[in-house]
């Protein structure tokens, strides 16, 4: 069974605080969109809590508390009380349809209006916005028009695709909003947007794709990270 959740190693690294920025964006976005993934992440963070409890305390500077107390009053930022247990979030009971609402991590980067982004045409039915995220990976939003396919390709490294809106099919597997797919050099695929809306994914590539279809081989020189 494919779980469509971020793999355990990734969640553990995020929980521990040393996952790189592009993959952190993926984990945070999936945590918002996918309750199962949020639950797993919470389990890893709980391991952090337990380990924190068990760490031998490090000696603090003698004035540590005296230096901290005066800062409390400057703490103007108001905490939002948590929602009472068992109540649903305000009016957000359905999966996002038009790519909105975006997870907070992504909104910070791109705002909330996907249509206003500078989409670059890549090939018929497929456009892309490259995001400015630290790290050596190529991080983008990819939009595939309903019924269109990405060109057949494989990978030199890894590709991570998190569905933000719509859905795509790859072989026999279907990925909807909040689902994550990881591909590498062992796959040769042409994901196809299904349903009547564009499929919008957050993708992270750690190396350029390798087009493998008949036209792809011709296009290859133009598809560069």
């Amino acid at each position: 069974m494919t779980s469509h959740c971020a793999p355990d190693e990734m969640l553990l690294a995020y929980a521990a605080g040393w996952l790189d920025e592009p993959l952190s964006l993926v984990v945070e976005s999936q945590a918002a969109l996918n309750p199962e993934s949020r639950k797993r992440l919470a389990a890893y963070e709980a391991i952090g809590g337990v380990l924190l409890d068990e760490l031998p305390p490090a000696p603090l500077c003698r004035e540590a508390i005296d230096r901290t107390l005066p800062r409390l009053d400057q703490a103007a930022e108001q905490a939002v009380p948590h929602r009472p247990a068992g109540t649903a979030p305000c009016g957000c009971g359905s999966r996002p349809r038009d790519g909105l609402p975006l997870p907070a991590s992504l909104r910070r980067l791109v705002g909330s209006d996907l249509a206003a982004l500078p989409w670059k045409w890549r090939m018929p039915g497929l456009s892309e916005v490259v995001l400015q995220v630290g790290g050596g990976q190529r991080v983008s939003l990819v939009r595939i028009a309903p019924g269109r396919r990405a060109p057949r390709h494989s990978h030199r490294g890894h590709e991570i695709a998190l569905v933000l809106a719509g859905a795509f099919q790859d072989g026999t597997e279907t990925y909807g909003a909040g689902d994550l797919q990881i591909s590498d050099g062992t796959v040769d695929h042409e994901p196809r947007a299904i349903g009547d809306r564009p499929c919008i994914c957050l993708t992270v590539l750690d190396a350029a794709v390798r087009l493998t279809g008949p036209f792809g081989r011709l296009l290859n020189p133009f598809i560069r990270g």
Partner: protein
Amino acid sequence: MTDALLLDPPTQALLIQAVAERRDREAFGQLFRYFAPRVKSYLLRLGAEDGLAEEIAQEAMVAVWRKAASFDPAQASVSTWVFTIARNKRIDGLRRLRRPELDPEDPALQPEARPAADRLLDASEREERLRRALNTLPEEQAEVIRLAFFEDKAHAAIASETDLPLGTVKSRLRLALTRLRRALAADGMDQA
């Protein structure tokens, strides 16, 4: 003031409540004396130098004061909550982008299909089970968990540090994680 101070999870939760509801500085002081040295210890393990670890630990505790009202005992125990605050403070320092807390009001947040009955179970009870599982892991498995968690170690680095083949490190880690997840699975934390 003593560093040997111990706070059990129910006491931690009461202190947070006192901070949230009454802005109780005495309660904050107890939380500070318990958590600040542990947070600092965590940061030192991740390679921060002493002054920075001290500073981030203080900042994290100020954030605990600020955010006390948003602590939700159904979501996490106090120590897990403090841990995530400290982790995020450290990452904020390392990155251009501030890490957002998982915002309960994020309109993108997709609710669980069935509001799990286990939510009624206090998170600190769930974590008590996790703690017991962690403490009964074979030492070799507990060790790779600690290394993976606190020492920013890629699996390969753990392997060279422990003089173990990479495959052994990976399989120990996997075994340990499976056990820990199973400890949580009783209340549906994970079925995998």
